[in-house]
């Protein structure tokens, strides 16, 4: 049995340096976006999904758990942030906080239920839970059903940053993304991350060392869900709406796709994957449902020939960990 992440490479001492270099390059590129003429809204959207994919990857790539319902955290945080901003008229920073707290609470509950089963059962359970939540949101009054929450005020962050200005908004989203990304990087390279890795590598052995592995997986689940919520809260400012799309299971599928394309268990893979998929959706929008067909084909191609994903293949070629 080959596990999902067996192709990832051992961390060599030089890896940290490589990762740092790539991170700096990535950050610089992103900082330069507003001066490049690239359409910033596209990049902002991609950044939100990249963060979501990174959070998702924390669970699958480092915890070995394939959640097929990760959109529920993004959607829940989106709805709660949107509600807080629009109805309670909270300032942006508190609105984001509300979203994160909501995703945190949801991940506690869903994690408690789903972590009891592994492998495909875990995937099916997370999928079913997200579908359950979808129907709840469809009927709950505060989400406004099909209409979604619209016209969300962007407001002034910390009272000074005017988020209705695209450039300001862009840098706020970028800072949010980089903060989230670094946090995930830290989690992976923390004492906790080390245990998580050992569980992924050889769970019976980790148990025999005295680790109650379910607790670690649970924490990974909660962290992943909460961070996915952070991505969802940020996205509210970009899209200025919160809708059912974000909690539908097709969105969860897209997150899986992004991570798979970029490379499961790689640090930068989900970012690359998110940009690739969002760009594809954006520029192939005229192709209608063929976008679905293309996405499906990418899934198939990735699974059959390209299991390491883009970044994974590159890393493998250069024998580096990225």
């Amino acid at each position, binding site marked *: 049995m080959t596990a999902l992440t067996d192709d990832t490479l051992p961390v060599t001492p030089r890896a940290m340096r490589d990762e740092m270099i790539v991170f700096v390059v990535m950050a610089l590129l992103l900082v330069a976006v507003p001066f490049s003429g690239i*359409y910033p809204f596209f990049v902002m*959207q991609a950044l939100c999904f990249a963060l979501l994919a990174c959070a998702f990857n924390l669970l699958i790539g480092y915890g070995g758990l394939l959640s097929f319902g990760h959109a529920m955290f993004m959607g829940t945080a989106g709805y709660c942030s949107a509600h807080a901003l629009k109805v309670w008229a909270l300032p942006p920073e508190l609105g984001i906080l509300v979203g994160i707290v909501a995703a945190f609470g949801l991940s506690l509950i869903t994690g408690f239920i789903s972590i009891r089963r592994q492998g495909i059962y875990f995937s099916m359970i997370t999928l079913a839970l997200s579908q359950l939540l979808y129907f709840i949101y469809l009927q709950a009054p505060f989400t406004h059903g099909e*209409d*979604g929450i619209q016209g969300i005020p962007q407001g002034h962050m910390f009272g000074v940053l005017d988020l209705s200005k695209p450039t300001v908004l862009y840098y706020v989203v970028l800072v949010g993304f980089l903060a989230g990304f670094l946090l995930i990087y830290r989690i992976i390279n923390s004492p906790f991350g080390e245990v998580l890795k050992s569980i992924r590598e050889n769970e019976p052995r980790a148990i025999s060392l005295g680790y109650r592995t379910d607790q670690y997986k649970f924490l990974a689940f909660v962290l992943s869900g909460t961070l996915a919520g952070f991505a969802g809260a940020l996205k509210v400012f970009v*899209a*200025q709406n919160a809708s059912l799309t974000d909690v539908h299971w097709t969105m969860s599928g897209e997150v899986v796709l992004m991570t798979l394309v970029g490379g499961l268990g790689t640090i930068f893979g989900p970012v690359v994957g998110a940009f690739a998929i969002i760009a594809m959706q*954006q520029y192939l*929008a005229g*192709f*209608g449902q063929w976008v679905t067909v293309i996405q499906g084909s990418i899934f198939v191609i990735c699974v059959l020939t390209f299991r390491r994903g883009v970044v994974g293949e590159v890393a493998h070629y250069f024998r580096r960990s990225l």
Partner: protein
Amino acid sequence: MKKSIASLLLGTALAVTTAGAAFAQDKTVKIGALSDQSGLYADLGGPGSTLAAQMAVEDSGLAAKGWKIDIISGDHQNKPDIGTAIARQWFDVDKVDIIVDVPNSGVALAVNNVVKEKNGVYINSGAATSDLTNAQCSPNTVHWTYDTYMLAHTTGQALVKAGGDTWFFLTADYAFGAALERDTTAVITANGGKVVGGVKHPLNTPDFSSFLLQAQASKAKIIGLANAGGDTTNTIKQAAEFGIVKGGQKLAALLLFLTDVKAIGLETAQGLNFTETFYWDMNDQTRAFSKRFSEKMKNGAMPTMVQAGVYAGVRHYLKALDALGGNPHDGVKVVDKMKSMPTEDELFGKGEIQPNGRTIHNAYLFEVKKPSESKGPWDFYKLVGTVSGDQAFTPLSESKCALLKK
């Protein structure tokens, strides 16, 4: 579809070359037809709406007056995110002036905000939500064709007056269904009818048998379907299966399009009552338009009321531009001009645009013909009654639009 891709790509290329020229000449307009191109609403809007917009441009004769009008189309895939992203990009990059169609209330409302922010023009034809001209009304928006308020007031009123005084509702359990049920109930009670019961069903229910059994048991004369799309067609089919219509109860579909009737088939749909604001076989003018339209459609489909609304809306918009004589890029100004002119076209007849953006025109109550009465592949309806625009749509006194408080 191919056409829209080509025009999308072409449009992007053109935008670069023509953007500079636009300011000099000021008679360049770009229309974005934003619709569901392949999903649930593709048949009632979609490529047909783009075609309708093109026909409106051709029929306007503005090209002869030195105007340069381009149309690009986009697929919002029923996702508000994608809809707003496309709309934004159209305004920011492609320099689009007006967005038309946009079925799906969620996307429609989301796009509404973008258009307002960018000061464009927004002629919505495909969305049902009456919020567009109420709580979320915008000085940049005109809502053509229909809305939930109208649907409730026409069908409900007509049926109660015809003796259908006891109702049972099958309602889609979300905002749209609730609004339809609420508004229709008000009309029924106001007209002396009574709602004897109802059941809320979840969206996208494949099986309605449980709900239909309850409707059957209620013995109500009319079973009101406050749902849409696949839910409505499924309910109607399954009602036929359970012998509900044969048992003497009547179905009232509050929202039904020509393409739905086509999908259900006359055998099953016969005798259904519902309201539309346009039908191809109304008079010589509608027939002439529809014939031209259907010849250009790849499946030969007749226009739906949504597509007709796109045509009429674009025609009126171009009339306003013609009256302004140029400078089409200030959305509020153009919409104000549109509101100041009475609407009149071959499809909807005479009407007006209210200050909240609501277009007022006649609405018609139809009944689906028996298969034996149908003379052609699209010969589906017989006219039962006409409701004048001021009766059918939200009176200004009831509108919650902030624009009215000025």
